[in-house]
């Protein structure tokens, strides 16, 4: 399915702007509710993320001593903007992405990394020791999960023979679900997504029992709200990407909702199942296990595609 919309509508309502903010908050609520149910609690009400964001936006923003004020103000905006831009290339709601070109998979992955990068810069900008430790951990984690996550998303791209997200989505819809043909890639992509979103067990960068709130310790009010929304948007974009690639493509809104929510169910289960890993354990897991396994998977796909040509 595809729609042709006025560019302003695309930017302000769908798929950019309002739709993404709304769905981001909705998915955050689903995530928190699921974790609460797994922990035998009732969990938050459906409007909880909205109330949190409105409250934070209405609060005073303190610019602490020792920071670069310009960077302090602009970094949350960059983070949110990059997450929103990344969404333009993904098949949200199972519709054709509005912008699509050869290689937009790489652009999307980099835009998602810009969000994490600005988080790290925001922490490093501050003189608060907790922010600094959080920033170090955020960037360390970025370097550890980024390679395997990228390799895991390259698997379907190579299988489909295209670097366009829309093309891979179409290919996934026509062939066998890639969770069956490339199970290792799926696991690496799912866990990589959890690392990207700093969800438990990969929440060492914002471990509240050790370093208060990590890189965002000094942020209050508007900046904190924008970073939270950015993270929610990243959750939606990440879920869309992984389910489009590995769960047989997203062709219509119903498929989109069912597949992304199914993936979120698994992710919430993993969140409540595992305790936090130390940052060195996270790095070790990714480089010793994740990258090697993803490389093997990639090698198998390349050989599998090359073999028929040889004989």
């Amino acid at each position, binding site marked *: 399915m595809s729609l042709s919309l006025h560019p302003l509508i695309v930017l302000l309502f769908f798929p950019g702007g309002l739709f993404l903010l709304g769905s981001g908050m909705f998915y955050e609520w689903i995530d928190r509710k699921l974790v609460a149910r797994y922990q035998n*609690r009732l969990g938050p009400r459906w409007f909880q993320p909205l109330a949190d964001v409105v409250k934070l936006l209405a609060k005073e923003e303190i610019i602490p001593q020792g920071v670069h004020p310009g960077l302090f103000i602009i970094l949350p905006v960059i983070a949110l903007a990059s997450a929103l831009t990344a969404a333009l290339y993904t098949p949200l709601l199972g519709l054709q992405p509005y912008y699509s070109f050869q290689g937009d998979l790489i652009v999307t992955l980099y835009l998602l990394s810009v969000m994490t990068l600005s988080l790290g810069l925001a922490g490093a900008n501050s003189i608060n020791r907790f922010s600094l430790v959080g920033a170090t951990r955020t960037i360390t984690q970025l370097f550890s999960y980024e390679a395997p996550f990228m390799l895991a998303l390259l698997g379907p791209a190579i299988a489909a023979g295209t670097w366009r997200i829309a093309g891979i989505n179409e290919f996934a819809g026509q062939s066998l679900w890639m969770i069956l043909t490339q199970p290792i890639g799926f696991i690496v992509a799912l866990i990589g997504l959890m690392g990207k979103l700093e969800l438990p067990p990969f929440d060492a960068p914002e471990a509240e029992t050790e370093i208060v709130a990590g890189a965002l310790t000094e942020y209050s009010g508007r900046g904190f709200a924008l970073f939270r929304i950015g993270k929610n948007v990243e959750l939606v974009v990440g879920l869309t990407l992984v389910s489009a690639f590995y769960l047989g493509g997203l062709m219509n809104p119903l498929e989109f909702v069912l597949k992304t929510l199914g993936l979120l169910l698994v992710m919430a289960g993993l969140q409540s199942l595992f305790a936090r890993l130390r940052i060195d354990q996270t790095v070790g897991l990714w480089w010793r296990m994740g990258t090697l396994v993803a490389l093997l998977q990639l090698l198998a796909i390349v050989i599998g595609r090359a073999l028929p040509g040889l004989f």
Partner: protein
Amino acid sequence: MSDQSSNPLASVMDGLKSWARINSPWVIHYNSGSCNGCDIEILATLTPRYDLERLGVKLQGSPRHADILICTGPVTRQSKERLKRIYEQMPSPKFVVAVGSCGTASGAFRGCYNICESIGDVIPVDVYVPGCAPRPEAIIYGVAQLLEMIKSGAPSAEMRKAEEPAAVEG
């Protein structure tokens, strides 16, 4: 406040703000020298049995993220400056709930040489929850009273303090 009736948009925005504040009270917990009895009860309040997340309450580590300071203890002279600093690090609007008899009127420690009587002497307090130690239900009731106060639009202790003439430091 006076031009609220003349501007409908402003009153809608005010309503939205106060709705968000009531439904998303994030708390930070500080022990200013209590015997830990009240702190155990506060932590029990946050456990799955009472599950305050269903009311939007979240425990935050950083004062910058919190709206409500839940504070216990008779404020020892050592922790007085820390308590003030944590309060000042919170962005406004901010509220304070003093939990336990010690926080209310120094309780069992009354007359000790090393304490500052009560939390109210150091920072402006909105709600006192008496008890030694108060049950989790009492703490939830105290926070609910505070939320009622925000809903009614009554000035918080922070606002009342700001209107007072500056006191001479003792």
